[in-house]
């Protein structure tokens, strides 16, 4: 993990004091609400009448055990004993009190956590492949580049007041596990003929008009990470629209200009920086990258004969352990090691929620079994990245005890959802209750295993925090005359085969939505070519029509009309 030096610590301390003074002035009536709004957003705070929300950045999704323990403390001392993991690998607190937030942030600063630029029109926390450093398909470990960029964009004065939020997502592997192209800029770190560079995409974004990032440059040299990022941010700062908040993301500039004009402007700015003193300052030297890389060096893995174990033997005696091994454990690049997924999708749990006790248990398990590290995933689950095979059974028992071992990773009940109307001031409709209803319909593991890999995602409003646009089945909550309704999209995907889901038709009522999802899944089960064909593959083969016909069958129409009447 990155370890702060004196500069990092002091800068964060001064920043926390800056916010403390801003909060003091606001509470004293010296700072108007509108002015304070801009400032608190840039410190992670959405202030709502009854439920303020504090978003804490988890840089590239990486958490250490000391941070997990601090989270346990903070959610007990300042909140109601739990927090929520988001689709951008961050953590949200739902109930802190504004006047206590500066103290809360000062405590988090002790363990290198902060809320700088967690909200607001600025460069947000950088997301990254949650298997960075551990994946068997990794070309280049992206974490050092993430941290170099994090420092560059943190409190960058030129880019602190952007037209709208700006998100970077990183991957260094052949499989995209960070939904990178849903970001304003995606950075794929890769090797070409043995030389490291970056493939840059720009213009992705969910929310209104969901779009996927378009390739701008297939190979930016390794030294030019900050230069290219600066060129993108500068182009956005100058040309992003400021007349309409719904048209202010960089994707709109791309759409209005077209890819070629945008690329030409970006490459021109890139060339100008390269040719100037600024380029000299921003150019990374090999030793800069190497020095940063030492923070992310491989943990002291034991040799395979010490770490490995024959898991088949144990699995034959214990079906539940076997199910967990099959669903929540993945291959690791090191022989004798595995990647373990921690499910935050237990029955009746709001997707992504984590209690103080669970934070503590995770800290202890990370220390005992994964070199003190944990990752947050964009599916709102967690990952213990480096677990020796022979520790798996002991780890499983303890995860079970903490309700963190539901064997449903990537399955029907692994539903992604924002907090929705129960918590969020922006939401139009509830999400948590709907996820529970869908969950109950598919609670049987046999049913889930039969359905296979599927990604159900749900957002309580158009902003799309629940990534509904890139769900195989996406659900979007909408408000119709004060009632909660739900629009369904099909065929979205956040990965290598990224696509934006297609809207099926009219929205479904609250009473219809869980039944509707079940119908869609049954359509798939009936129409799939064989058990190997996944929901997404089946959808792409047979198209929207069969799903639509089933979803709006005459029976359902009659029902909904009766309800509406």
């Amino acid at each position: 993990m990155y370890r702060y030096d004196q500069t990092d610590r002091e800068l964060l301390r001064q920043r926390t004091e800056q916010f403390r003074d801003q909060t003091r002035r606001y509470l004293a009536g010296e700072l108007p609400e509108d002015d304070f709004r801009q400032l608190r957003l840039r410190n992670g705070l959405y202030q709502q009448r009854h439920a303020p929300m504090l978003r804490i950045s988890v840089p590239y999704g990486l958490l250490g055990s000391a941070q997990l323990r601090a989270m346990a403390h903070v959610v007990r001392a300042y909140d109601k004993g739990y927090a929520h993991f988001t689709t951008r690998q961050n953590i949200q607190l739902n109930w802190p009190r504004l006047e206590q937030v500066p103290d809360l942030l000062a405590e988090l600063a002790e363990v290198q956590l902060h809320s700088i630029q967690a909200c607001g029109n600025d460069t947000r926390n950088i997301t990254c492949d949650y298997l960075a450093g551990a994946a068997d398909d990794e070309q280049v470990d992206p974490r050092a580049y993430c941290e170099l960029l994090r420092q560059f964009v943190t409190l960058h004065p030129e880019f602190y007041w952007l037209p709208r939020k700006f998100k970077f997502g990183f991957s260094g592997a052949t499989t995209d596990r960070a939904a990178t192209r849903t970001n304003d800029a995606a950075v794929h770190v890769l090797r070409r003929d043995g030389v490291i560079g970056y493939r840059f995409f720009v213009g992705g974004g969910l929310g209104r008009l969901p779009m996927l990032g378009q390739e701008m440059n297939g190979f930016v040299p390794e030294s030019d990470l900050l230069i290219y990022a600066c060129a993108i941010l500068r182009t956005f700062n100058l040309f992003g629209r400021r007349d309409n908040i719904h048209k202010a993301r960089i994707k709109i500039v791309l759409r209005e200009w077209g890819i070629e004009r945008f690329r030409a402007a970006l490459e021109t700015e890139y060339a100008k920086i390269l040719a100037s003193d600024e380029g000299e300052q921003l150019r990374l030297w090999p030793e800069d990258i190497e020095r940063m890389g030492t923070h992310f060096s491989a943990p002291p893995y034991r040799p395979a004969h010490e770490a490995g174990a024959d898991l088949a033997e144990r699995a034959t005696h214990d079906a539940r352990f076997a199910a967990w091994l099959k669903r929540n454990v993945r291959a690791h690049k090191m022989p004798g090691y595995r990647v373990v997924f921690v499910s935050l999708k237990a029955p009746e749990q709001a997707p992504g929620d984590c209690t103080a006790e669970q934070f503590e248990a995770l800290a202890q398990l990370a220390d005992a079994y994964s070199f003190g590290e944990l990752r947050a995933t964009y599916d709102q689950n967690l990952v213990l990245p480096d677990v020796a095979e022979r520790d798996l059974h002991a780890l499983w028992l303890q995860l079970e005890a903490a309700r963190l071992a539901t064997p449903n990773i990537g399955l029907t009940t692994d539903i992604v959802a924002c907090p929705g109307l129960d918590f969020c001031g922006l939401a139009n409709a509830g999400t948590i209750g709907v996820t529970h209803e869908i969950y109950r319909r598919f609670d049987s593991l046999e049913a889930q295993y039969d359905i296979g890999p599927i990604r159900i995602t749900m957002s309580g409003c158009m902003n799309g925090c629940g990534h509904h646009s890139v769900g195989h089945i996406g659900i979007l909550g909408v408000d119709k005359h004060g009632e909660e309704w739900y629009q369904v999209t099909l065929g979205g995907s956040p990965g290598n085969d990224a696509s934006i889901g297609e809207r099926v038709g009219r929205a479904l009522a609250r009473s219809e939505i869980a039944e509707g999802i079940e119908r869609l899944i049954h359509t798939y089960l009936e129409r799939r070519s064989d058990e190997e064909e996944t929901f997404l593959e089946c959808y792409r083969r047979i198209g929207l029509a069969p799903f639509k016909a089933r979803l709006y069958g005459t029976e359902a129409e009659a029902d909904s009309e009766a309800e509406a009447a």
Partner: protein
Amino acid sequence: MSRILRHRAIVEDDWTLAVDMTAAPSAADRWIVPLARWRAERDTLGAGALGVLLPNTADVETLYPQIAASPVIALQFPAFADGRALTQAVLLRNRLGYRGELRAVGDVVRDLVFWLGRCGFDVLVPRPDQDLEACRQALDEIRLAYQPAADGHTPIWVRRRASAADATGSNAP
């Protein structure tokens, strides 16, 4: 005359921002006028006596050859969260080498001051309701920086090169 921040000091402003003035300026007036007016007047007054006010949509790189001689370039913040003029300022200072007075006008509030200072503004004209002394102090709200801007901060990665060299006893820069 209003009071402003110039080079970190609170002083009386000796320039007048004349957005809609119809009277012809004289060389003694020290007016800052919009670009179109500036173009019309500079030949009679001499570029040295007239400051120019640019909209935050102006392409400073294209304009610069015309306005380089202006002793004052005023950049606008229609709302303090509209940061376009921050990029204009950085480009004027770093890329174009403008060394005259760069002033921030408009919705200039105390909580924008720190960012203005880092981007190369040396004259700030705070909104009339702002406490000037508080604005002055806000210039140093945060005294460290990771990245270069237009205020002379050495990037953190460059400083770490130097400290790594120190740590190994090397004489490298």
